[in-house]
């Protein structure tokens, strides 16, 4: 069984995707042996009314999720009254965490508002997922060009919030994974491998950040789900490592 920490509901603005209807998404995930999927929403990347995007996300997870969809709402700290979005994610929607898109929302990881957001999230014991990018910068729509997030300032923030739990999503292929090792040492930081490339990518990532910090993430439905699944096979992991990556590491993170 698999816990997938990186799926999205709703519509990608530039292309219709197989799986962008919640019922179809859940059918696919169940077919792939996913027992729990941490679901964000594409609307949270692009919409200014994040509150309604998060409410729809929570509602869709309840209505279509068949018990496997766990919503993680979006918070954009550059919007007025973003603190209320964080409160609703936690108190009203009972979400275990939030998903951030700093590049699409226009801030860097040394921005004071980001630090305030993670401080409040840590106080609420919310997991913070940071998506470093959504797609290859070279193939973006010409009117919507967004560079990836530079995660190097994150270590300093983590030092100030030792109880914070962070998941880095979509560490893009041109990011040298050797740079992720120091980040994993700086705090409770976990990594998915939806965008990590080169042969044996899961094992290579684990060499840098240690196996307990590696989580299964697919970036489905923007990516073919099978990509992350086959990366595990390609990496030649032991049964124990596979189980940890598929399920146990995320389960442990969620239980903390």
């Amino acid at each position, binding site marked *: 069984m698999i816990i997938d920490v990186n799926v999205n509901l709703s519509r990608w603005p530039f292309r219709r995707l*197989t799986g962008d209807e919640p019922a179809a998404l859940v059918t696919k995930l169940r077919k792939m042996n996913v027992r729990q999927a941490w679901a964000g929403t594409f609307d949270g990347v692009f919409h200014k009314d994040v509150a309604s995007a998060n409410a729809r996300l929570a509602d869709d997870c309840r209505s279509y999720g068949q018990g496997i969809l766990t919503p993680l709402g979006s918070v954009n700290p550059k919007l007025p009254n973003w603190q209320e979005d964080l409160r609703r994610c936690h108190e009203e929607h009972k979400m275990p965490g939030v998903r951030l898109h700093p590049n699409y929302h226009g801030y860097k990881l040394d921005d004071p508002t980001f630090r305030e957001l993670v401080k409040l999230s840590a106080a609420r014991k919310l997991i913070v997922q940071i998506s470093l990018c959504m797609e290859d910068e070279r193939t973006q729509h010409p009117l919507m060009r967004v560079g990836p997030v530079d995660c190097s300032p994150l270590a300093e923030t983590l030092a100030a919030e030792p109880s914070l739990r962070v998941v880095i999503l979509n560490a893009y292929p041109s990011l040298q994974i050797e740079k992720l090792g120091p980040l994993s040492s700086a705090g409770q930081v976990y990594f998915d491998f939806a965008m990590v490339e080169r042969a044996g990518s899961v094992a290579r990532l684990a060499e840098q950040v240690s196996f307990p910090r590696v989580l299964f993430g697919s970036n489905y439905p923007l990516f073919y789900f*099978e990509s992350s699944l*086959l990366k595990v096979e390609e990496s030649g992991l032991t049964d124990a490592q596979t189980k940890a990556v598929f399920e146990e590491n995320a389960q442990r993170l969620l239980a903390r």
Partner: protein
Amino acid sequence: MTYLIRFMDRMKIERVMLSLGHTLVENPSTQQLREQNDQVIRAIQRWPDRALGFAYLNPNHLAFSLQEFDRCVRDGPMVAVKLWVAKRCSAPELDAIVERAEAMKAVILQHCWFKVNGNLPGESTSLDLVKLALRHPKAMFIDAHTGGDWELGIRAIQPVRNIATCVAGFDPTSGVVEMAVRELGASRVIFGSDGAGRSFASQLAKVIGAEIPDSARNMIFGENLRQMLMPILRAKGRQA
């Protein structure tokens, strides 16, 4: 190659087509071309059942490239041509290379990308390949990365029947193979990995995860390329 074979075995990849050498050289000198091709020749000679070779040529050194084609393909073990980013492939210098390849029925694999943040000076788009292919309607071409920005790449080559697309070397974005099969037909879609720079897994997933008939999947995974290589392999007395 030993490193690649380990992952090929895990992912049940029977055979690869190799090109370029141990290091990536964008505009290789004549000496570098020879060294790079020698590296590939050594690999395919050591692993004849697991690898075939592309001869890496550089149109900026046209006379030498033609000699290198003869050395590696006509008189050597290689079966196809690889062109990368030294010169845009719509340039007239490419014609002599294509004529030489066509005479041997050797397919030409051309790197093509549409980069919204700008191509390298010598980097082709699929539209450059279209211009070249229209000048040589009997030659066989493969667009190496479906144009990178695949919705553009597939549209660009759609009307030009002597270009196939290779879905290698870009993110496993949902829908690419479905669109390629829909617009080009399964017979013009070829699997490639861009390994080991890319994961075999992420590239296999494009075909395995695509909502296409199994018959199309089989064509993409091997039959199409086998058909393209059959004439030159037969001429060399080898099995496809």
